[in-house]
């Protein structure tokens, strides 16, 4: 094992990450003087946009070939830059959703935004990680902040208890999943003597490799830890509870950014060394992906609350993304990065509408609460209809091209049966997504007015997501 002599630092590659961390620190300091949450929101959005600019520069720079830093522990290839964009977009949308929500509710602690940014920086590290220790670091940075955010609703009412319960549940299960993953990493290191994805790959494919069982068990445990974050069956149980209990802006963030990071890691290990460590691990994973699509879609079908329905729907989409992971060594990277952008826009958009329509304490998200929204709030209803149709995969919206990408990748990699399972379960999806549209447009109005007046930031998030969903769907070549 050889390491470069000097510490290998690429400042351009680090710039988006460092921008986020610096912005989080500035926002924290700012909040010492000014407890108004909206100042912090403004600072963090600015920081994210700046990180986006740096990321664009990095993308142009890396077009010539992948850039690495720290001896290949941090990679800047096409997957990194494109998923960093996805994370930045997801975080911006989540902050816009939170802007007035946090200000007007008992969640109102200004530390919310710096935490969110730190979590996003952890997600970005996971995306770029080129070795298992970096991956673990990113995962822990991301997760710790999200545990706190999930439990962010203070007070004694039922919504606050639910939020605290969600945070606690997520923390305990997440810590357990991390432990499993660390154990897996340890076993992989023990078997191969390397933390590097390329090092592990080289060791297990070497002709004299003597510890295949140890490596396979390590690979399986590593996969388990990541599958927990990605909400792949049978480790998806926490998702509906935590998504429902957490304040809606936090759910927005979790469902898009945390998922993006988890799938990036799955893609990297899936393409990097997992099939070589043990084909059986991939075989197991393919069964779990199929089960995830079934459980997610049928789970969503049974829900009355829209937040819980969206939580199960995100499990279903984890299944579709799993198809891309299975094709990681062929077309999976491109398919997954496209799908994740589409998924981020439509899911964040749907949660944003939910945050505006339900009450400030997140109660009142039942289907009947949306009745007649088409007449009461035509703009919001139209946007929600766009997100639902896109999630259902109806062209010409982004969700369709995303499905086309992942199903093509899966069929191309030989997983025809799984693709058929995916399609059949998405017929179920059409039903429950369309139910929302039906209620909004075809049912009689419930007279309840929207809480808290006009939420400009929330509406901006919805408009951005809706326009993005349509434009991406009509002109898919731009992403």
């Amino acid at each position, binding site marked *: 094992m050889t390491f470069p002599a000097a510490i290998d630092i690429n400042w351009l590659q680090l710039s988006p990450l460092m921008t986020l961390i610096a912005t989080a620190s500035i926002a924290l300091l700012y909040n010492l003087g000014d407890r108004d949450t909206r100042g912090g929101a403004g600072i963090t959005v600015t920081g994210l946009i700046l990180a986006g600019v740096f990321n664009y520069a990095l993308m142009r720079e890396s077009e010539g070939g992948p850039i690495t830093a720290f001896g290949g522990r941090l990679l800047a290839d096409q997957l990194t830059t494109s998923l960093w964009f996805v994370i930045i977009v997801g975080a911006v949308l989540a902050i816009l959703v939170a802007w007035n929500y946090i200000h007007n509710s008992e969640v109102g602690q200004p530390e919310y935004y710096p935490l969110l940014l730190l979590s996003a920086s952890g997600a970005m590290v996971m995306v770029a990680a080129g070795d298992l220790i970096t991956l673990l670091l990113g995962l822990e940075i991301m997760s710790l902040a999200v545990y706190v955010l999930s439990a962010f609703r203070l007070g004694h009412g039922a919504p606050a208890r639910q939020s605290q319960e969600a945070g606690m549940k997520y923390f305990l299960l997440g810590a357990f999943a991390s432990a499993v993953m660390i154990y897996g990493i340890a076993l992989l290191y023990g078997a191969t003597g390397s933390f590097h994805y390329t090092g592990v790959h080289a060791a297990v494919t070497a002709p004299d490799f003597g510890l295949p069982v140890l490596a396979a068990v390590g690979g399986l445990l590593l996969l388990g830890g990541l599958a927990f974050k990605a909400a792949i069956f049978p480790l998806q149980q926490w998702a509906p509870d935590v998504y429902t209990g957490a304040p809606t802006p936090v759910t927005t963030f979790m469902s898009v950014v945390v998922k993006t990071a988890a799938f990036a890691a799955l893609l990297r290990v899936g393409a990097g060394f997992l099939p070589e460590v043990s084909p059986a691990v991939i075989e197991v994973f393919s069964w779990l992906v199929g089960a995830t699509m079934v459980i997610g879609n049928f789970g969503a079908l049974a829900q009355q609350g829209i937040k819980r329905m969206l939580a199960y729907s995100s499990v279903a989409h984890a299944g579709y993304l799993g198809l891309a992971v299975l094709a990681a060594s062929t077309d999976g990277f491109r398919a997954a990065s496209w799908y994740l952008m589409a998924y981020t826009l439509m899911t964040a958009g749907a949660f944003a509408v939910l945050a505006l329509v339900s009450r400030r304490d997140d109660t009142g998200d039942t289907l009947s609460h949306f009745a007649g929204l088409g007449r009461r709030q035509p703009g919001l209803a139209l946007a929600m209809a766009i997100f639902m149709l896109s999630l259902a995969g109806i062209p*010409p919206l982004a969700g369709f091209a995303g499905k*086309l990408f992942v199903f093509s990748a899966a069929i*191309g990699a030989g997983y*025809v049966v799984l693709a058929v399972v995916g*399609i059949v379960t998405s017929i179920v999806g059409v*039903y429950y997504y369309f139910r929302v549209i039906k209620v909004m447009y075809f049912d009689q109005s419930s007279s309840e007015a929207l809480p808290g007046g006009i939420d400009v930031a929330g509406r901006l998030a919805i408009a951005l997501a809706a326009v993005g969903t349509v434009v991406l769907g009509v002109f*898919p070549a731009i992403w």
Partner: protein
Amino acid sequence: MTLAVILVPLIAALLLPLLGGLGRIVALGAAIATFVLALRLPSAEAVNLPWLPDLGVTFSLSGHGAATVLVAAAALAMIGAVWYGGFRVTHRTSVFLALLLAMQAFLNGIFLAKDLVIFYVFWEATLIPSLIMLGVWGGSAKRAAVMKYLVYAMGGSLLMLVGIIALKVTSGATGFHFDELVAAGASLDLNTQLLIFAAFAVAFAVKLPLVPVHSWLIDFHEQNHPSGVADVAGTLYKVGAFGFFAWAIPLLPAAAEAAAPLLLALAAITALYGGVVAVAQTDLKRLLAYASLSHMGIIGVGVFSLQPEGMTGGMLLLAAQMVSTSALFILAGMLGERRGTFELSAYGGLARSAPFLASIMLFSIFASIGVPGLGNFPGEFLSLLGAWLHTPGWAIVATLTIIAAGIYGVNLYQRMFQGREQLPAPDLSFREAITLLPFVAGILWFGIAPAAAVSNIELQTRAGTEQAITQPTEPLAGTMEDSQ
């Protein structure tokens, strides 16, 4: 030009909700402009733009072949529908007209698409306006009708999506363009072809529709807005036969040949079943829905005969019935406005007080049941001829439909317009008469001068049947020209 046929109605649809009262004029203008553009399609350039280069999808359109005739027929029906809807639909008129035009734009996309993914995109996109029209303007049991329609349509088409992807991947084609797929698809072995063909066939059978996946159609028509305008959109949307004709059969010729006997039988049964059940209906809209189902069966036997005569005839009948069935639904809307119900028993003897209405109704019924000299006859004749050349037995079954059609057609007219007059009804108003003009013109056009339409459709038929019957592996001169 080719793109304009889609863009003109689509842009009008997007502007319409913003225009208020002016919207009706703009909508009508767009419908007429689309028709004029449609007439110039045969000389139009094909469109080829990159859409999703990663996956080999190009935005390819071509107005040659059957598309020429279908787009024109749909545009003709749409002119009448937009005009009538402009004053007959009073609740949120401009949104309704916008949906109608969006429907037309996407339908034209279905007919013109030369890339299979683009075809699928338009195929699915059409679902949205038709669902909204049914859901917002529909009758009392619309919720059940909407969900039934949605599940049938999506269930079929999502399977087709698997078929589309699998076709490209298994055949090794580099893209989804018709020319690439047709060369690659024919080389697949029969079992693979059959599996992929089945995925297409389910989607197309639902939209054809064929028995036993037809039941959404009846609820769909019964529950749609009583004006009949939304039914026109629904009539135009029965594009399953076109899917078989333009895609499934030429792309998977061996599978098509193997499946043709079964499909032909189903189509013949559909034709007869629709006709016989129509005789027993007491509700005008349900009767028309079953009659239209029966026509679709005849189109089916034509297409599944895989004979040039039958396939051309099927597409000709598809175009002609767009006009004649639409006319009947609009007339039903006019009658329903006068009586407030579609129950046949509420009518009777109307010919005395409303002679013009009666005569146009009789004219449209005759066209619909295939009286020579009027719209449906040439297509019906060619379809049945094709079926006869393939399997005489099923051709006879399908031909029995003509007897049923005579019974339900004449019965319908007798019960509504002859006999004792229960209540006098006002005759056609001036605007109603204008509504019916394009339909009458279309019926006469398809009846008297079908030659131009036939020669246009034949361009594409030849490509399809040569592929299916004579030379399964040879690339096609005809379709190659289209893409230039």
